[in-house]
């Protein structure tokens, strides 16, 4: 084997071993090493960092405990970018029940879990424009969750 060919093979093997993407997941999940109140604050700041507006926080745990059920902290965070939400609702009304976007966030002992649906898996479509929207939505969530995985 010629040296150039050898080095090319090494580099190619290296890229193959380390660079392949993992499979797309149906649910996006992240564990934050922060306690629930810290994680909740960080989520709000992270949404702001990526130009999203927090529209509402649904306090599921409050409703459950008021009815006598035991639960740890559990909230649903609704968020979005107003122009995008309006455009999606107008052009793709089938997305309306999923707007604004939402993330479930709940305490797991000293950590906090975040869960969201992978929109690319939820809406399988042949429409390239809608595919691009779903991809952006997915990438946005990935960025948010990546930030949430670290303190």
């Amino acid at each position, binding site marked *: 084997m010629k040296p150039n060919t050898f080095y090319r093979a090494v580099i190619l093997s290296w890229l193959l071993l380390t660079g392949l993407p993992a499979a797309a997941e*149906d649910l996006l999940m992240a564990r934050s090493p922060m306690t629930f109140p810290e994680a909740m604050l960080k989520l709000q700041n992270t949404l702001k960092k990526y130009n999203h507006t927090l529209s509402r926080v649904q306090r599921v745990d409050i409703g459950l405990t008021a009815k006598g059920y035991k639960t740890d902290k*559990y909230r649903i965070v609704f968020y979005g970018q107003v122009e995008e939400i309006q455009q999606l609702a107008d052009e793709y009304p089938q997305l309306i029940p999923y707007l604004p976007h939402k993330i479930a966030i709940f305490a797991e002992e000293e950590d906090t879990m975040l869960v969201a649906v992978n929109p690319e898996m939820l809406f399988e479509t042949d429409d390239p424009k809608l595919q691009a929207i779903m991809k952006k939505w997915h990438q946005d969530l990935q960025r948010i969750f990546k930030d949430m995985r670290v303190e």
Partner: protein
Amino acid sequence: MLFRVPLYLALCLIVGASQAADNTRGEELYRQHCAACHGYDGNGGVGVPLTLPDFQYSVTNNYLKTTIRHGRPGRVMPAFPSMSNADIKALIQYIRQWAPGKPYRYPITPVGGDAKHGEQLYQQHCAACHGPNGEGGKGTGLTFSRPRDLPIIAPALNNPGFLKAASDQFIKATLMNGREGTPMVSFLQQGLTEQDINDLVVFVRSFEQNPLPKEQKPLEVKEATIVFESSYDMKTTIANLKDAIIGNNFILIREQTLDDGLVPAGKENPKQQIIYFCNFGFLNQALAIDPRVGLFLPCRVTVVEKDGKVLVYAINPSRLSPLFNNTELNKLCHEMNTSYISIIEDATL
């Protein structure tokens, strides 16, 4: 010769760097794909703990690899069919940091025995935790967010992912030795003979011949959205929906516009209204099965007036169910779907 020395050094560096890269890559993959359920330190959560010494001793790398590759269909653990072999290897290397020693090596010989006798023993000794048909315990691996009876869920022995990953000798060793730190006891100590245990293994293996019951298969639904056109104007449709929600044993939570909180107060679009509602008993039941189902929550319908038509939209819970890879949700999702359709039909027809 001059070329061979630097080549040898380069290869040594590559091997060393490759192992270090494997560790880093393994940690990166673990944090991205596993830590959410199994915990950063492997102590479990929605997923089972990976740090139990008995678990680390008893599972082979091949068991871990097959489990990562094929998951546990319908039992929360997802499959990673397109993860590269190198990534799986790096991930296993990372998980093995919690191993107290080298894992057992099992003979590859299949176990022989009497499946009929195994079935009798199974119903007597195993069915209480693993279910009469091997369907496993209820709920996710562990969860700290809610109270529960057992520290760890009993695995589904009829699951195709489990049967693919677990060899006969692995199942036999688990039955013989039990699994410390879990409710799984040693059946030798419980008085069974080695032949009884062989019979049990053969019975468990026989699950491969039986198709999974319908309720253990993921739902196959394409449409993510339920949509109905109302026969009434927007105001009447909303009033009808509120009546129907209460009539179907739900509590009204609130009514708001779709863009509420996103646009300044007073600038909302009144032609897109959301009604939120809940049945807390149902919600509590769903969260006990899978704490991630907040994504369904709260129940809602959206009423939209556009081009002279009034349309009512809702999520299709039966489409969301398979995304959780948890077939225990099938029944609840079907019930929720029926409730949505009943409420919307009551209000719009």
